[in-house]
């Protein structure tokens, strides 16, 4: 408190900085409480590892032993393979179904039923059908990744502005042109929201697949550490997943910003100046 007062007297930190300081103080206070509680014997360190033990585990699995890198690589390559395959399929089918009213009507009951089914639950079935190994893991991830992009693309395509659709029709646009120039661009924010859900689901999907198959990957690592009651290392793996989850979240936000550039002022200006320049270079004079 005295330190904070000193800084304030020096005309120092803004409200924001002071808030960050309080946040840090509360966080470290909680961590210290945990550590002290464990050392004093209120918390069983066998089940609730000490913060210092978790830090030591981080050091061990990343540096001295370095075994997490391999498992991370295995899991993340599965996540991206399954995510791309599943979401491309989802977006494609969503656009296809959305454009055709009859198909939509007949598909709807199945979609409702599938939505109520916990999709990750199909994991054991897929493993039994496709065997142990990479194929069944990717199939599981594809399945959990498929649904959100599919539904979101579908609803994005259905909810296209009637007047704009009318305009496209009166200009004599073909079905493909309507899809490319109007429907997909309008649906992109919703599709991106679906992609974000899908990527998160993919991370859960790979974990479930690895919990069941138990051969390699971060899920297997967490399971093994927990079974050996090495809780500190299990927690280090989980915090790694938190970091990955956070990166995915931020990455998707940036991607969303770039792809749906017309949604924000700066992006719109950037793209339109670039296009104007490209157009001017192609020969046309720019009328200002």
């Amino acid at each position: 408190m005295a330190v904070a007062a000193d800084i304030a007297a020096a005309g120092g930190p803004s409200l924001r900085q002071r808030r960050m300081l309080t946040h840090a103080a509360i966080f470290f206070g909680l961590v210290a409480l945990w550590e002290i509680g464990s050392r004093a014997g209120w918390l069983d360190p066998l089940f609730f590892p000490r913060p210092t033990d978790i830090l030591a585990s981080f050091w061990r699995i990343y540096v001295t032993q370095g075994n997490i890198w391999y498992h991370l690589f295995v899991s993340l390559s599965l996540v991206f393979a399954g995510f791309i395959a599943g979401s491309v399929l989802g977006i494609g089918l969503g656009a296809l179904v959305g454009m055709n009213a009859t198909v939509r009507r007949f598909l709807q009951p199945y979609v409702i039923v599938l939505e109520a089914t916990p999709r990750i639950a199909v994991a054991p079935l897929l493993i039994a059908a496709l065997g142990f190994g990479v194929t069944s893991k990717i199939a599981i991830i594809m399945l959990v990744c498929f649904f959100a992009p599919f539904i979101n693309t579908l609803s994005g395509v259905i909810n296209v502005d009637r007047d704009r659709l009318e305009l496209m029709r009166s200009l004599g646009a073909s079905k493909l042109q309507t899809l490319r120039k109007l429907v997909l661009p309008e649906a992109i924010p919703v599709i991106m929201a679906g992609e974000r859900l899908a990527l998160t689901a993919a991370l859960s999907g790979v974990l479930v697949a690895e919990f069941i198959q138990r051969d390699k990957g971060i899920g297997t690592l967490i399971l093994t550490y927990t079974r050996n009651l090495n809780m500190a290392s299990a927690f280090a793996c989980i915090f790694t997943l938190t970091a990955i989850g956070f990166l995915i979240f931020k990455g998707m936000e940036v991607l969303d910003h770039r792809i749906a550039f017309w949604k924000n002022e700066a992006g719109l200006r950037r793209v339109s100046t670039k296009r104007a320049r490209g157009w001017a270079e192609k020969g046309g004079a720019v009328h200002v």
Partner: protein
Amino acid sequence: MSDALGKAGFWVVRLLPHLMVLTGLLAIWEWLVAAGIITSILIPRPSAIIASVFRLYVTEGSIYEHFFITLAEAVFGFLIGAGVAIALAVSSSLSESFARYVTPYAVVLNVTPGIALTPIIIAWFGYGMGSKIALAAVLCFFPIFVNTLTGLRQTDPDREELFRSFGATQRQVFTQLRVPAALPLMFAGLKIGLTTALIGAVVAEFAQATAGVGVLMARSSFSLDMASSLAALLSMTLIGLILFYSMELLDDRIVFWRRDARMSAVSRARARAWADGTGK
């Protein structure tokens, strides 16, 4: 009478094409397996699945124990997760500084795949129902928290103005303006939460359990009894549908003003009660 018949006829006409498509698809599937184009070990015939469902639900009746255990795990987990989420969201909406200090932890919890906690939760809560309830609660927390908080925070300046000009107290603003305005979003969150709670219960059952639909499914899959496995999957769908539609029903009763038919029914009932109470 003829009206009722007309209504029934209307439904038959609407449902008939759907049923025909379904029957056609099942017939093609049946034929593909029977002709040996699809291996029956991997993808069983529809008739085998129906036979399995019949066996599990009628002749053996062995599914009910598993069914209700999974249902109970999902519901209890949901109640705990939703209770904590709503309590935290309400406190956050009432106190700006409380919100500031809770939100970062909620966000961290959100970006962590909750399923990663499965082995640890099992180590903490044991092999019984406790660990399934705990995982269900953890998984359903965030959507409910976020939706409730967003709902409570959204404000309509005009309505606020109206409440202020009538001299409403802080408490009245909260209970009669904020909460009703938040309910639709909150229910959307609760519906998502129910689905994720079911996922939590089932995944925890896969990892380690002695009873539940998830166990039944994993067991039959690994003994290559795919028909029973799919029957178990259909049971999960049934649980999901039961949970979803009970929440939908609750939504319909509580957030009555969003549907015209319910709206007029409720206002008519209120008008009658008012007329009975105060007279002419």
